[in-house]
């Protein structure tokens, strides 16, 4: 993630605050769509797609990295078709129930919001997001917590990978980790990551840490441009919410 955030593109160069604003605004608006308004909602996918294009991050990266979370988000609406059986529209001879539509909109909302959040983190980095949060007077406790959690999670994952490697090197041909080793494995994992977390925290304190991480990479883009872009984006997002663009286009063509 840190590597994605360190690249350079139009989106990367925007100030963190404007990106945070666009992402939050987009998510709020997307969630506010009516549960049967599938055509209107569909247009919203354009924003994240455009974002991925402009920041040169393949959309697939997002789906790959979030492959664990995506199915969960999609599973949320799975029961809707069973509750809401009223027929809303018919395609040919097949009637589509309201439940199916609302399930689809729910899934789409979830996926779009995830795509946008991922884009935000991937182009801004966790330090950038936290500095933006600090700008809007978010309490330092929260941003510090966020930063440290982020660091500790990566540390935990690192520890897991080192330990599994060490295990497999001495247990060739074994699939997974043997049941009997799980207890000591988990125990060691917790102790080791706690030790490392403690060590890292100490070395932060030794270098005068007081709640903020500074990144050497500056956002080069001018503030005014970022602000203008975020206003324009907000207006576009709102327009998509107010007008049903596909219906509008349709009526234009008919006319």
């Amino acid at each position, binding site marked *: 993630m*840190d*590597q994605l955030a*360190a690249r350079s593109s139009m989106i990367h160069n925007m100030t963190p605050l404007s990106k945070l604003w666009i992402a939050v605004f987009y998510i709020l608006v997307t969630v506010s769509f009516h549960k049967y308004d599938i055509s209107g909602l569909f247009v919203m996918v354009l924003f994240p797609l455009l974002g991925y294009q402009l920041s040169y991050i393949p959309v697939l990266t997002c789906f790959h990295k979030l492959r664990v979370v995506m199915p969960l988000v999609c599973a949320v609406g799975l029961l809707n078709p069973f509750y809401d059986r009223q027929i809303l529209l018919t395609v040919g001879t097949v009637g589509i129930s309201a439940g199916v539509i609302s399930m689809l909109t729910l899934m789409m909302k979830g996926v779009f919001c995830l795509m946008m959040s991922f884009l935000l983190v991937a182009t801004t*980095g966790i330090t950038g997001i936290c500095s933006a949060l600090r700008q809007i007077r978010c309490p330092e406790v929260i941003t510090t917590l966020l930063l440290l959690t982020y*660091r500790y999670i990566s540390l935990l994952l*690192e520890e897991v990978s080192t330990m599994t490697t060490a295990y497999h090197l001495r247990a060739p041909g074994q699939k997974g980790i043997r049941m009997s080793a799980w207890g000591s494995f988990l125990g060691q994992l917790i102790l080791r990551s706690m030790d*490392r977390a403690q*060590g*890292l925290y*100490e*070395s*932060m*304190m*030794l*270098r*005068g*840490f*007081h709640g*903020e*991480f*500074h*990144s*050497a*990479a*500056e956002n080069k883009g001018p503030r005014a441009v970022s602000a203008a872009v975020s206003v324009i984006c907000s207006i576009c997002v709102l327009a998509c919410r107010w007008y049903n663009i596909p219906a509008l286009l349709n009526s234009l063509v008919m006319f």
Partner: protein
Amino acid sequence: MIQFDHVNFSYTGEQPVLQDLSFHIREGEQVGLIGANGAGKSTLMKAVLGLVYPQQGRILADGIPVEPANLAQIRKSLGYVLQDSDQQMFMPTVLDDMIFGPVNYGLAKAEAVKKAEETLASLHIEHLKDRYNHRISGGEKRMAAIATILTMEPKVMLMDEPSSSLDPRNRRNLIRALKTIPVTKLIAAHDLDLILDTCTRVLLLSGGRIAADGPAEEILRDRKLLEDNGLELPLSIGGRSGQ
């Protein structure tokens, strides 16, 4: 600059790790700390930084007692290179890590970056500047960790095994850089040649006690003393040749 008065410390409460330690390191002194594995070198350094507190005795750093209330002030003048660089580096890139300390102590970011670049140049590791901390080799990480501390320009430098996992050239660059920095230094190392090159005084630790304290030239030439305490003569003085 650093003063220990009858310091006793134990991690568990049973096995003593530091026993009745007393010594005084004056400003500008370059002191080598040697001793076998488990002698208590790292623990001694942690005690100076207030990462562990002695059960008995008193420690002064820069004339200030090492106590929780004074830690922020004390740590500002101390730079500590940890034995394990993995614990030292926590920012995404080497440069980010290097400016972390200076910026926290109030330096403008641009100035901190400039200072970091100078340090990298003095250690001949400019190529590491924008590398990711989790994508560099053990020795590279070691050099980067040392660079992060040098950038802080501390009044006292505490280094735990600075030359471990360094190749000969990097080791030489490190020694050269250390020699040009006139600040007070306490260097713990098994690399006795490095100590001989960079330090004028040596503290020999054994089982948490000071077994010898004197000029580096004298102690590092004393074969019997070193061997009695689980060490060997430095190679440059003829270590191993007599075996």
